């Protein structure tokens, strides 16, 4: 996929503040943003909108809602083609041990990377584009 092809991004987060912030930031960089605030709504939005990328919060209804959603997305035909990133503040230093470096783990988690909150928007966009490049 050509990086220029990323136009529409699905953002899923149950924290409405973070959801709105990231939406604004991405929109200001020229993306079209679709939002959802739960795993279920997220998957509905994915099926309806068929976004070019998805950025999903990890801890929502469940501790691993984000992984469940990314797993579901990656099982679809469309999902296999797009980058899916997990966004969380529960990273290594908080005691949760997942790293984005292990390909084995990534394969199991079915996502393309794990990003720290709060997100630095230009880094996020660079990540998305490097995935498709």
């Amino acid at each position, binding site marked *: 996929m050509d990086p220029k092809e990323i136009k529409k991004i699905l953002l899923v987060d149950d924290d409405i503040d973070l959801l709105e912030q990231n939406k604004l930031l991405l929109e200001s960089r020229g993306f079209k943003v679709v939002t959802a605030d739960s795993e279920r709504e997220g998957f509905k939005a994915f099926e309806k909108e068929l976004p070019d990328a998805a950025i999903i919060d990890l801890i929502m209804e469940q501790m691993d809602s984000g992984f469940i959603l990314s797993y579901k997305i990656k099982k679809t035909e469309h999902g296999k083609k797009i980058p899916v990133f997990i966004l969380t*503040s529960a990273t290594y230093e908080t005691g949760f041990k997942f790293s984005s470096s292990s390909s084995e783990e990534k394969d199991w988690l079915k996502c393309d990377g794990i990003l720290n909150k709060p997100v630095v928007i230009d880094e996020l966009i660079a990540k998305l584009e490097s995935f498709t490049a």
Partner: protein
Amino acid sequence: MSVEKQKTKILIVDDEKGIRIGTKSLLEDEGYDVSVADCGNKGIELGTSSEFDIAIIDLKMPDVDGLEVLSKIKSTFPNTICFIATAYASYETAIESTRLGAFGYIPKPFSPEELIYQVEQGIKQRNLILEAARLKQEREEKLLEIASEKSRLNTIIKSINEGVLVINLNGELSYFNYAALRYLNIQSIKIGEYVLEKLPIEIIELFNKITSADKYLLKTYSKQIEILPNNELVIEAACTPVPNPDGSLAGIVLILSNITQFKKIELIKSQFVSMVAHELKTPIAAVQGFINIILDDSIHLDREKEKEYLQRASVRLKNLTALVNDLLDISRMELKTKQREIEAVNLEEIINSTIQFLEFEISNKKINVDKNFQTNLPPIYADVNEISRLFTNLISNAIKYNKENGSIYITAHQEDDYINIKIRDTGIGMKPEEKEKLFNEFYRAKNEKTRGISGTGLGLSIVKKIVESYNGKIEVDSRYEYGTTFTIHLPINHN
């Protein structure tokens, strides 16, 4: 015991009166205590009814033979020194009398010097025998003591909670207790068997570390070992060298302790720390996010929007402060460092002032609060701040998780030594699986209906800690979509 040394007791058995009298007076002059018997039967009677040091027995007597007297006395008191006196000395009788335990043979007639000499030899012999017997008994007592000490040590090692294994340099088992089998999850081992191959690799490493060193140090090495997966059984093995009396290495002793519970607590603690870190980072991320947006050059916000974002950032900071305060409260409660001021607390007053405190939230949601208190409800003895905190948390939950135009019903009545308070709301209720986790730290029911409701996730955990610290009880009853009822039983006097 008499202070005076006991006189040596001598028994003379002789049918000849002259000898009896002569010998008796001779020996009494020497300071001995002398008894006499004029026939064999009398001799047996005297010699077996009390212990004599010395007995001088005539061989030929009309009623009973001297050898029989000798044998009877010896069988009752083996330490009595017996002499056979006779005018008919023969080789056979001498042998026979010695066989029966006679110490000496005194041929008749005997001179006073000869008799006294023989008696003195007899006394020496008797003292030697008594001393030997005393030493023997002492030795037996010592052995018994050692044996019982050994069995006591055995019993102690067998009954302690720690596993003990002693292994020699060849890797053969020298000693073990059953706790060791349990902790190693081994069915059976035998003393003397090569045991290393049955032990976990970590223990073999400890063994090698000590036994393969050029010069061992009298130092303990330990390791934590997961015996059963998923932390079902975790032990700590402490391995210490056992020296020979000459200082060379004899083997090792392993002490195994079950640290499964400790590991579980450690895990809970680290999970708690992870959760705390996550809960602290989330609002910080939100505040940082608002700042980023306001500072971002490509986003142009009008004055109103900017103000709204700053207000929302401020709310997140307020919640963060509340969270930190809740955490500090929990920590203080757990460490019991909080100084309590126990006084008579009127529950109705506390609940009324809590409702007043939450008036804004109540009228915002148009909630009707209905109270029904038993008249003359006795006060409870408690810290007013803690009780007030308890009801603030519960009533604010009843508001937050209520519906618009909902109701809250609060009742209180006395039952024996307890006050029972019920707080019922007509809110969104809980699913059974949510109810289970309700009092867990940071648990917040998350579903379509709870979205947008803020909280630290510690409120009910604090409520439960307060109630339990007063030896009270809290129960929850809930129907999804219909509401939740909390019932609290607080003792009037918690001590």
